[in-house]
């Protein structure tokens, strides 16, 4: 075996060497490589021992104090509304989108019409397209939350241990966000006269409401009730069906617009 190169020695030092046994055997029999490896060990040991300035034991609290001031200034999460910081952006986006749809609705109603219009320029189709895209995304998110809850293992009493609480804080936060957008889309669908979308959003609201208003941690029994509620209402199936319909409508509308432009 020829002499070991630096890469092999460094890999050996960190326990990453592919053929560690062969390398060690070589080290036993080759003084030059052994000395090279010892020199590497000494150098790396010197770096290991390089001092790091000590922090106080309450350094973590100091850091918290320092950053919480900055969080307070710009990023405090509203505990009253129990909406995560990200949902603020989401809320803003949803509100803007809803405003666009409503604007498009009234613009379509009152804007003076030209004698000839292409399908792409039709405000009714524009507002329908905007609503379909937004609702499709909304239903996908709702479906994910419902599926995670419906399919989760809520039985904490495995192996004879005490039943554990189930932490649904993440789903709860997402349900709270969805609840806000759900109401906005429902109102918009009502204004645009899309009954199918309005009905599914109307059916979704009490389920989201129940999840959003549950405590962060629920007992296994309470969790089972939430799951039963999701299953008995058949809401997951309905959401899937409408979501599929909405996507079909989206595609159909896009095709019509494409044809209208040609």
């Amino acid at each position, binding site marked *: 075996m020829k002499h070991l190169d630096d890469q092999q020695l460094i890999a050996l030092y960190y326990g990453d060497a592919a053929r560690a046994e062969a390398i060690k055997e070589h080290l036993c029999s080759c003084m030059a490589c052994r000395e090279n490896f010892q020199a590497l060990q*000494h*150098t790396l040991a010197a770096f290991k021992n390089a001092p790091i300035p000590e*922090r106080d034991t309450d350094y973590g609290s100091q850091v918290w104090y320092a950053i919480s001031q900055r969080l307070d200034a710009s990023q405090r999460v509203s505990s009253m*509304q129990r909406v*995560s910081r990200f949902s603020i952006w989401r809320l803003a986006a949803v509100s803007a989108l809803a405003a666009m749809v409503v604007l498009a609705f009234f613009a379509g109603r009152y804007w003076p019409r030209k004698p000839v219009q292409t399908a792409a320029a039709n405000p009714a189709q524009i507002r329908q397209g905007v609503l379909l895209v937004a609702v499709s995304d909304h239903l996908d998110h709702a479906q994910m939350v419902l599926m995670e809850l419906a399919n989760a293992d809520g039985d*904490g009493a495995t192996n004879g241990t005490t039943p554990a609480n189930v932490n649904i804080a993440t789903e709860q936060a997402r349900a709270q966000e969805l609840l806000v957008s759900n109401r906005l889309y429902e109102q918009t669908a009502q204004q645009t006269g899309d009954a199918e979308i309005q009905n599914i959003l109307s059916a979704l609201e009490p389920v989201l409401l129940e999840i959003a208003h549950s405590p962060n941690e629920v007992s296994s029994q309470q969790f089972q009730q939430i799951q039963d509620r999701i299953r008995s209402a058949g809401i997951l199936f309905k959401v899937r069906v409408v979501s599929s319909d909405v996507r079909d409508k989206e595609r159909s509308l896009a095709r019509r617009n494409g044809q209208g432009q040609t």
Partner: protein
Amino acid sequence: MVRMDHADDSDATQVAKTLAGNQEAFRPLVERYSQRLFRLAYRIAGNEDDAEELVQETFLKAYRNLGKFESRSNFGTWLYRICANCSLDQLRKRRPEGVFQELDDPEGSMSQGDLSHPSPSPERLMFSTEMRQEMEAAIQQLTPTERMAFALRHHEGLGIEEISEILGLRISATKNAVFRGVQKLRRALAPFAEQIR
């Protein structure tokens, strides 16, 4: 993801509570990881002020991006990744452009023979404080990626896979970064070999 938690203070639970609007729930995470992050940040930045700034910046970014944290992941690793990005940004900002050309060459095809270090005088060799300065100077010669990879491997004892995840590099590139870092340090300290023994 729904999680079954027996321990209220687990990282994932605190993250979920924070996301649900309880800002105070972020505090235990800050208290738990501050010391570790400081050690890493100090090794990267090389001075206390910058390291403290990095720690705070890391937590602020973590808080802002908490919604992107996947509860199945390790929160500590995620924090390291943020700290790594903050550190790299800081190092790049503070060094003139062009110094870290090798950043664009994570696979290590760059020449490794450009590490000439002036030989110290005998007087300098006598003082361990100066020895420490030489070691710090050697660390400063590493690119940000090499420095981070070395700190995570050598001081934090993380495995190559975890480091590659933190740095966003391929496994081979991560191994190369560690290797090149160690090789540079060895060369830089070669004149002090006798003193180190």
